[in-house]
């Protein structure tokens, strides 16, 4: 139950990743030449404006790096009926996206995949994504 809730939540987050309320240029912040593929465990979900952030721990060669994944605004998530705590820590995710141009462990998400292989594509930066 918890997992399916998280799954539905992710559908929401990814649908809205980089959407609805961009307050700055994503093209300016993220690098088309730096596509990233990440796999890791959710450490926290930060509900904030103008963007919410999912943080995941990604282990590479024994070294763990905490990546920040930029998603849609908290307001839009709440308007769809979602609540804080709906994406539990420990959830394993695979993420496709683009890294920030400044080289930090920050990514704009294009898709998120669960361990069961179910893939959820992001309507990244798609303003016309429905708000309800």
């Amino acid at each position, binding site marked *: 139950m918890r997992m399916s809730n998280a799954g539905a939540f992710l559908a929401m987050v990814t649908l809205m990743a980089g959407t609805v*309320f961009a*307050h700055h240029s994503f093209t300016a912040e993220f690098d088309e030449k730096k596509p990233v593929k990440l796999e890791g465990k959710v450490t926290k979900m930060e509900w904030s404006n103008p963007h919410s952030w999912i943080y995941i721990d990604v282990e590479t060669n024994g070294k763990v790096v905490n990546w920040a994944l930029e998603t849609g605004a908290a307001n839009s998530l709440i308007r769809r009926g979602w609540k804080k705590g709906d994406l539990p820590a420990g959830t394993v995710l695979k993420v496709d996206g683009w890294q920030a141009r400044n080289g930090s462990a920050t990514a704009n998400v294009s898709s998120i995949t669960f361990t069961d292989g179910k893939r959820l594509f992001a309507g990244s930066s798609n303003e016309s994504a429905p708000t309800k």
Partner: protein
Amino acid sequence: MLSWPWGTRCALLAAVLAVCGGSALAQQVQRTGGASALPRTTDGKPNFQGIWQVRSGAAYDLQDHAARAGMPAGKSVVEGGAIPYQPAAAAKKQQNFTNRLTADPLGKCFMPGVPRIMYMEYPFQIFQTPEHIAMAFEWSQVYRLIYVTAKPPLHEGFDSWMGNSRAHWEGDTLVVEVTDQNDKTWFDIAGDFHSEALHVTERYTLADADTIQYEATITDPKVFTKPWKISMPMVRQKNVPRLLEFQCQAEAEEANGDFERDPRTWYPKAGSPPSPLGPPAVMPPAVALPAVKTGANLKRTAEGKPDMTGYYNANAGGANYGLERHSRDFLTPATRGVVIDPADGTLPYQAWARTERVNRELPYRGYDDPTAHCFVAGVPRGIYTPSPFQILQAPGYVVLLFERMAWRIIPLEGRAHISDNVRLWQGDSVGHWEGDTLVVDTTNLNGKTWLNEVGDVMSHAAHIVERFAPLDGGKITYRATVTDPIAYTRPWTIEIGLSKDNEELLEVACHEDNGDLQHLKDVRDEHREQQKKEK
């Protein structure tokens, strides 16, 4: 120690017995016969509309205090004199006081919360309808939208800096219950604080036509031993015809160099050398477009005007990513093109401005967009930024409240624009009705805003005429005609549809968590370093 049920009992009994705060004042008003002389709305309620300000010294310290740097001495506005802190909280307050110059959230331009916003010594304006009380504050364009209803908030439990406000009338007193505030705000510069369990009950009573007696009862069982009350007069500002702006974060960033305005679009000071761009273009008049046919079955206000009150989203077709039609470019969405004049959808740029527009889309310029810094979007961008807004029609005014904390106040009585020398992020707007269409004329812009995140250009010289044409079914056809002789060769017009929805605004405290800005700054700084090396 008073027991906690005091607050509950008080709330329950208040309506019937008027035993709680405000009753003494209300009786006094009636005794002196003042009640009959009070300004009243058409539905018979005390009329709070107007511009008000508190000068009680409470903003510095709610309790008795000696003078200190930046803080005049003042006497307590707390009933009984002292705030009843629990012992641990008293220690925390003392720590806040010691660190106040760096620890006060207001120092970072965060929203002050309630009640602090009410007694900061800036003017604010109240707009009143039977269903809503809106308060627009000069400080950082903060507003409160108070719903006069017994219905709970649509999104109860959504923490915010300014909280949720629900109001009801107890006789001639407006009682506002404020819930869902976060635990980050203080009550004053002195470090008086609260937890997320804060509940504020405000009481607004007209003592006379020009004085609101304001009371706020503070309940927070995690911090205080009992509820406590502050009270102070709010005084009508008869010599303040309109609110101006103090954009806290924008002014701070311009002062410390984090934000650099463009000297080509910024308003020149008197005596400045002539613009390197040469004299402004001689503009032909705007093309007269066929008027939008307004709805046949519009809901109307008591004055017979179309009632557009409500929560709106723009079907903006990606205008925030470009006003001209273009296809998707990496993470910049496609835009359908919203320019209806010129008919080919191309903005009539002057050559320098077209070059600037192209440059602004380069990654190292992303940092220069004022909204990336969380500054206000300006006019007309606030309408089509992908973020909702509320239209409120109060007597004599249309007010626009934008979810990302900014307001526009549009007076309808036909006043002139303010002095040319006063330049504002949101400009100076005046409105009038042409049939059923609301026409809003805006000047006095400061030339700092971008028209969208790809950098469509507009200067301080822009004169904007917006038309809100209401259609049936909660729709509005919105047009904005921009005449800007510094950046364009002729006027141009955009058209965007607005749709009403059964929703309530949720606060966006944009710069509280603006992690993107540093990334954008890094990209810009790297570019500047590269340029230095190449020289």
